[in-house]
């Protein structure tokens, strides 16, 4: 574990990313205390520029809602959607990929054709269709994002399993008589986990972007304030009131950037093959 931190912290960008990420999480957790009122409530005059009235440092939007409150509450939605949809995608992707890679043969063929079916449809288009069919709500958004993002996980895990299952330590556990399920869960999966974790951190970032894009198009959950919705609502007044879309935009940028940096750092720390080469 200490080794892991040493390698992780060698990547300065990753540490910065982690700090930003923790800040975003802190804001998300503290949102109900910082802004106890609903972010949808009109609290000041509309078109209030930032830094002009005390307590409204980020200004207000076209209806007089506090942008600061929107940012804080939006962080909750973004992180929630990002994390839950990634978890669902991992569950589906890892299961299918593991089965395909371990058993091979016909099952592999069938599962991979099924995966390719999803890969041939453009992600975003499929997500829009799914959300539109199921009615926009947090659940349908999470599901839609999960459904469009599991195929790459399945392919990655399948590849890892294919190469790991021919390794001698896996064959050894076949010979000592371990059951297939045990071999998959205790022998192969832990060894495939590092690439999955790295991929998951990047998937959270993609999921946040997808959620923002959906909300931007007006397909977000109508009861949840989200960054994408704020930008979408402010785009008509972009020239008169830059701050309305600027702040949520920066929030998305920073969060996604932080997740990517952390992903890089995890990659360095978990797959230290490059670092080992020099020895």
């Amino acid at each position, binding site marked *: 574990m200490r080794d892991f931190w040493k390698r992780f912290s060698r990547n300065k960008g990753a540490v910065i990313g982690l700090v930003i990420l923790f800040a975003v999480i802190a804001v998300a957790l503290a949102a109900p205390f910082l802004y106890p009122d609903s972010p949808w409530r009109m609290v000041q005059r509309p078109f209030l520029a930032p830094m002009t009235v005390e307590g409204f440092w980020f200004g207000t939007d076209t209806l007089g809602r506090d942008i600061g409150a929107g940012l804080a509450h939006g962080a909750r939605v973004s992180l929630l959607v990002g994390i839950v949809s990634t978890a669902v995608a991992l569950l589906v992707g890892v299961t299918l990929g593991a089965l395909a890679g371990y058993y091979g043969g016909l099952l592999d063929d069938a599962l991979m054709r099924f995966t390719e079916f999803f890969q041939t449809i453009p992600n975003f288009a499929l997500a829009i269709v799914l959300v539109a069919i199921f009615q926009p709500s947090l659940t349908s958004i999470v599901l839609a994002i999960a459904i469009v993002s599991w195929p790459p996980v399945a392919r990655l895990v399948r590849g890892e399993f294919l190469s790991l299952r021919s*390794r*001698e*330590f896996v*064959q*050894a*556990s*076949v*010979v*000592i*008589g*371990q*059951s297939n399920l*045990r071999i998959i869960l205790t*022998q192969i999966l*832990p*060894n495939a986990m590092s690439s999955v974790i790295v991929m998951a951190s990047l998937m959270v970032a993609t999921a946040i972007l997808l959620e923002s894009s959906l909300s931007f198009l007006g397909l977000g959950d109508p009861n949840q304030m989200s960054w994408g919705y704020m930008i979408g609502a402010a785009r008509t007044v972009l020239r008169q009131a830059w701050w309305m879309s600027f702040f949520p935009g920066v929030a998305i940028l920073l969060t996604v950037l932080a997740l990517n940096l952390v992903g890089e750092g995890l990659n360095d720390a978990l797959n230290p093959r490059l670092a080992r*080469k*020099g*020895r």
Partner: protein
Amino acid sequence: MAAQEALLRVEGLSVRLPSGADRALAVEEVSFELRRGEILCIVGESGSGKSITANTIMGLLPRPYVEPVAGRILFEGRDLLREPEPALRALRGSRIGMIFQEPMTALNPVLRIGEQIAEVFDAHGRLSKKGRRERVRDLLASVGLPDPDNLGDSYPFRLSGGQRQRVMIAMALALEPAILIADEPTTALDVTTQAQILDLIKHLQRERDMGVMFITHDFGVVAEIADRVAVMQFGKIVETGTARQVLNDPQHDYTRRLVGSVPAFEPPPERPRVEGEPILKVEGLQKTYITARGLFTKGRRVSAARDVSFEIRRGETLGLVGESGSGKSTVGRCIVRLLDADGGAIRFREEVDLNSLSGRKLAPYRRHVQMVFQDPYASLNPRRKVGRIIAEGPMAHGASWKEAMARARELLALVRLDPSAAERYPHEFSGGQRQRIGIARALALDPELLVADEPVSALDVSVQAQVLDLLEEIKQRLKLAMLFITHDLRVAAQICDRVAVMQQGQIVEYGDTRRVFAEPQHAYTRSLLAAVPGKEWKIPEVARQAAQKQKESIA
């Protein structure tokens, strides 16, 4: 071999390793010279710094992680360590040629052989297009490749490993270099191919009066080819001398131990007949691989086992000997049921045919037949503690965690590791120690038959001897039957009661080890035996004693 001019002189060379490596200097104060018309063998175990030395001379170090810090490498009046990269590039290939260990990956798979060799001339701006073609033809002929007129137009995948190594040699010799550096050029090859390549290198070296620096870990090869020998240990040269001196009268203690660990190649003494009851009877085993079958292609059929039959008694070691692709590993894997055989029977204790069982019915029998794997680095799960790795077998057969861990500690002691090793991860152990862990894992289920698939071929000689002794001792003590799969005839001669020689999926000769080695009947067996490097060389008594002493001090 009168004193000839020195072509290459290495003086006080030290090479630094990156911080965090197991020692500060990969190569320390190394000095030697390579003379015209001689073959200098640099011998050492893995990690002794012999390849780093060669790569330093060629300027192929992964700088700045690994960097020479002291010394000089003098070649034709110049210090190679101080030459700029372009000058080195001009020297590489033209004045110093190099061949590598792995012929399968050293050639570009999408370029024709002829084009690849011609590239050497291209890189150094020599010869016209037509001249190149002719020269390529001559080179291919000179390294003894068949049909040199047309071979240049084929792609590397059409050639066998030995032929590819010949192409590599042709490339290295294309510009008639003064020096050839060969880094374990025959390690990846079969014995018969190895013998041919060694002959070829020797022949070309005589013919062109080159200096050859030959890096190897195999004393048999040294005995076959070397004029002079330098022995390396931990980055230092501990002994240099003529081949005769070093091989027959080694002075340094390390050299003695190393030479003494080489298994003797002579018909082994008559062993008492093993009278135990037969544990395993294999009858008419068949296995055919069908590769590359697609929707529209028919697929290539390779028979890996054709009508293979043998039996192993309790307390007996049967050696399954053959070159790569002979099907010996396939047979081993069919017996432990990692592979499903296509036909035949694998009778265990006269009771059951393992080949007819599968799934749940097979599970209770798995414990009786266990396997020791080849690669000690790949055969242990890197994310599990050693104790858990060994305990997993008994636990899969219903033992509790406590019982299994207690058993694991006992077994670690049996294979001469400290029981505290149970709490550590595999990467904390050396290759030999890991192989002991692998043996302990196989023994954890109290098997009656142990299938050992090349268990020592990834290990250094001195460690090899220890692991072989351990296997022998355990077999005696636990009254096991053992199927020992190996390509190394020296090892087979040392440990097997009987041997079966395999060629292209068939057993061509089968009998007592002594009989097979002393009076081989089949032509293939004879050619295998004739190809063993250094077979005339008798290992000196001082070395044997040194190795014996070392063993006793470990025990």
